[in-house]
């Protein structure tokens, strides 16, 4: 294992210290328990939007803390959900009197820890679970669909709603509408190596790819020979389109995401193909996001996320955001 780390035991803390140094104008990092909080929290009268999850998906979630997105993020150990006391600390530090909305990715550990925190919190807390990964099909016999790329879009749109003054019930309702309109799928060309494990999470031959990969290296639908970029994009896009389903005339946000190790040159190449395939089907791409925003350490691979937009979602997407990883309109 070759990584720029001092000690697998302290990798998350050490990274958080660096994050504080880099972005002290936007956020404050607390280490015990670990919570990344927007610098001007709590914002009086505003619903606090809080998320969190295992580290290793950066910039998710800490990189989205700031005006117009998250009030706080709770980073767990690498690929491990945060603990209830982290979530409680986040609520206490950010609740400006209007309550808090927890955005939880659908993994057993995340749901259990956030649920426990919600039961212990003294503030008014609601939570919304995001489960946009179409790769997991058989929901009755699994822990259900995973929360993946749609989380980034959800945090941006609901963050903007809270910023304009929507109350807790409105933020929650909007969040559920976004969850109902967003679908994702990813693929991996290489595995990632978790620092405290030291060896790759799974084996993948040089000429193979895993289609339907999760963001922790969970297996996908199938393992197939590596094809052309066009074939890869179609492998992801077709199941996404069939699932919602998306139809001709839909207006969408297309989010082309790197799993961490895939460079932008390949990502833009893939994004261009996806735009063309959508145009061929009569689907209008109204907004887009391209880059590494929800990653799986150094894994090579990509995911596509499609969100069916309405006018309100478009205006919330366009609203000002000022965070380490997303910034416009300010």
């Amino acid at each position, binding site marked *: 294992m070759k990584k720029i780390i001092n000690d697998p035991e302290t990798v998350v803390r050490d990274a958080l210290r660096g994050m504080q140094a880099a972005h002290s104008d936007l956020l404050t990092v607390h280490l015990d328990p670990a919570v990344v909080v927007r610098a001007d929290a709590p914002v009086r009268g505003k619903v606090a939007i809080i998320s969190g999850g295992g580290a290793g998906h950066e910039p998710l979630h800490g990189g989205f803390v700031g005006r117009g997105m998250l009030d706080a993020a709770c980073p767990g150990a690498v690929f491990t959900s945060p603990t209830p006391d982290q979530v409680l600390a986040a609520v206490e530090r950010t609740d400006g009197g209007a309550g808090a909305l927890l955005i939880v990715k659908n993994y057993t550990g995340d749901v259990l*820890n956030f649920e426990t925190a919600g039961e212990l919190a003294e503030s008014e807390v609601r939570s919304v679970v995001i489960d946009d990964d179409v790769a997991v099909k058989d929901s009755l*016999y699994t*822990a259900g669909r995973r929360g993946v790329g749609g989380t980034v879009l959800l945090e941006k749109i609901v963050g903007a709603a809270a910023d304009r003054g929507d109350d807790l019930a409105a933020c929650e309702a909007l969040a559920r509408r976004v969850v109902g309109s967003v679908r994702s799928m990813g693929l991996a060309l290489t595995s990632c190596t978790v620092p405290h494990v030291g060896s790759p999470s799974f084996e993948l031959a040089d000429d193979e790819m895993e289609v339907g990969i999760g963001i922790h290296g969970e297996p996908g639908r199938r393992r197939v020979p590596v094809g052309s970029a066009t074939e890869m994009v179609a492998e992801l896009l077709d199941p996404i389109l069939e699932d919602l389903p998306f139809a001709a005339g839909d207006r969408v946000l297309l989010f082309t995401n790197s799993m961490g190790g895939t460079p932008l040159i390949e990502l833009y190449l893939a994004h261009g193909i996806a735009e063309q395939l959508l145009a061929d089907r009569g689907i209008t791409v109204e907004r887009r996001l391209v880059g590494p925003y929800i990653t799986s350490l150094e894994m090579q691979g990509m995911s596509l996320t499609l969100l069916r937009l309405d006018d309100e979602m478009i205006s919330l997407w366009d609203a000002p955001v000022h965070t380490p990883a997303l910034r416009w309109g300010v």
Partner: protein
Amino acid sequence: MGCTAADVVAALRAAAAVVQEHRDELVRLDQAIGDADHGENLRRGFTALLSRLDAEEPASPGKALKLVATTLISTVGGAAGPLYGTAFLRASAAVGDAAELDGEAVARALQAALEGVVARGKAVVGDKTMVDALTPAVTAAASAEGSVAGVLSAAADAAAEGAESTVPMVARKGRASYLGERSAGHLDPGARSTALLLRAFADAAAGA
């Protein structure tokens, strides 16, 4: 002979040593069908527990179990944190303020722990989880009359068998469930850690 707060603390220290010793094994089991963090998460939790036990002396068995619960909930993360935390919290409530526990109280605590795990995790026997180890342990404990050591030993034997029974199962809960049929043929790490903990408690009770 009953089991005092000091006996519970000794058993917890023994359990922490067992977790440390089996950390890599649990990581490997979890790497095969999960996300490779179970051994490390439990090690972190039980290491934190050791420092809490160094700092304070629980006044009763129930208080000691509650200390385990709060420590694991705040340090483990993953699914194991809330599940083990809930198990110890319910066990603590079941034994109340008693200064000493007999075999029957221990069996009752195990029953309460199982109920807590099922309430929180919603798993049933056959889902390939810690419930597959804990359920037979509770049954065995209930029918094993006698000393704390006898009850725990019966529970530990049953838990070991229950853990082994997860090997052919297809996971229906937790991250292993994403593997579907590919999860068969692997020992469930949560069931394994449950069996390890009960064996550590039983050995500590037998030596006390």
